[in-house]
């Protein structure tokens, strides 16, 4: 079943927490979304590139503070993330 990056992002945010550093696995995400693991992992990589998700050394993943702030904005539709250094 095809899955969108946006859907993976929202499910990741529902299953994890940035401040408490609660994580989940690709398999758990794929199961929760009834989606293909490879597709979920590819979207997670894209979200990590956007700094909206973070891969942990043990292979798990979680939403970032940036990701939670983006969801709090309630933005619908297109989003482009352009990280830049402070200052």
């Amino acid at each position, binding site marked *: 079943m095809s899955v969108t990056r946006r859907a993976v992002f929202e499910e990741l945010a529902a299953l994890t927490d*940035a401040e408490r550093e609660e994580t989940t696995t690709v398999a758990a995400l794929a199961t929760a979304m009834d989606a293909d693991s490879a597709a979920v992992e590819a979207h997670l990589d894209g979200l990590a590139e956007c*700094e909206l998700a973070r891969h942990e050394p043990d292979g798990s993943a979680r939403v970032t503070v940036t990701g939670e702030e983006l969801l709090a904005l309630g933005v619908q539709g297109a*989003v482009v993330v352009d990280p830049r250094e402070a*200052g």
Partner: protein
Amino acid sequence: MSQGTPDPSPERDEEVHYDASSSRYDIFECPDCENVVLALGRDDPPMTCHGEPMERVTDVEMSVKPPDVRQVLLDAFGLPKAGLDICLCVIGEGPLSANEVAEELGYDRSTVTRYLNTLVDLGLLQRAELNREAGGVVNVYHSVDLERMRRETLVGFYVWAGEAAALIEEANLTKQDYLEENPDRSLPDVFWESFAGE
């Protein structure tokens, strides 16, 4: 003409003629003065002039070359193809990183960032600063409400069209004055020089 060579003069075949009965827009004029207006999305005369409904223009003889949307965006908003490409790209599924947009379209990352900010200035995107876990901030560009985007682009274009109409009106009203002031010069020279530097 050899195959693959663009036709240098296709304009005549492509010209369109305003037909009040089938047009997607309407042109109205005041029967008592020179007021002419363009209206979209209304079946009835949308406004009055001198307290009376304006009349639909039906005797348009001039044909025009239909506008190319890329040229309109370039002329009206200063939005070249790169900006339009980025605008269309980000409407798809996201979130996307600026690097992904750059790779997808074959532009430099700096070009993508520049046009994202241009699209914000035009009111077609909104920008927010979010905190970054590693420190610093992240710029997030997101689409505006579609209804707002429609209004921004239409009003923006009308401003541009109004400026163009004012120039045409100025030219119509003053070319005779130029001729009277410069009886020894040809009209084309005087006419175009009058707009030099504007």
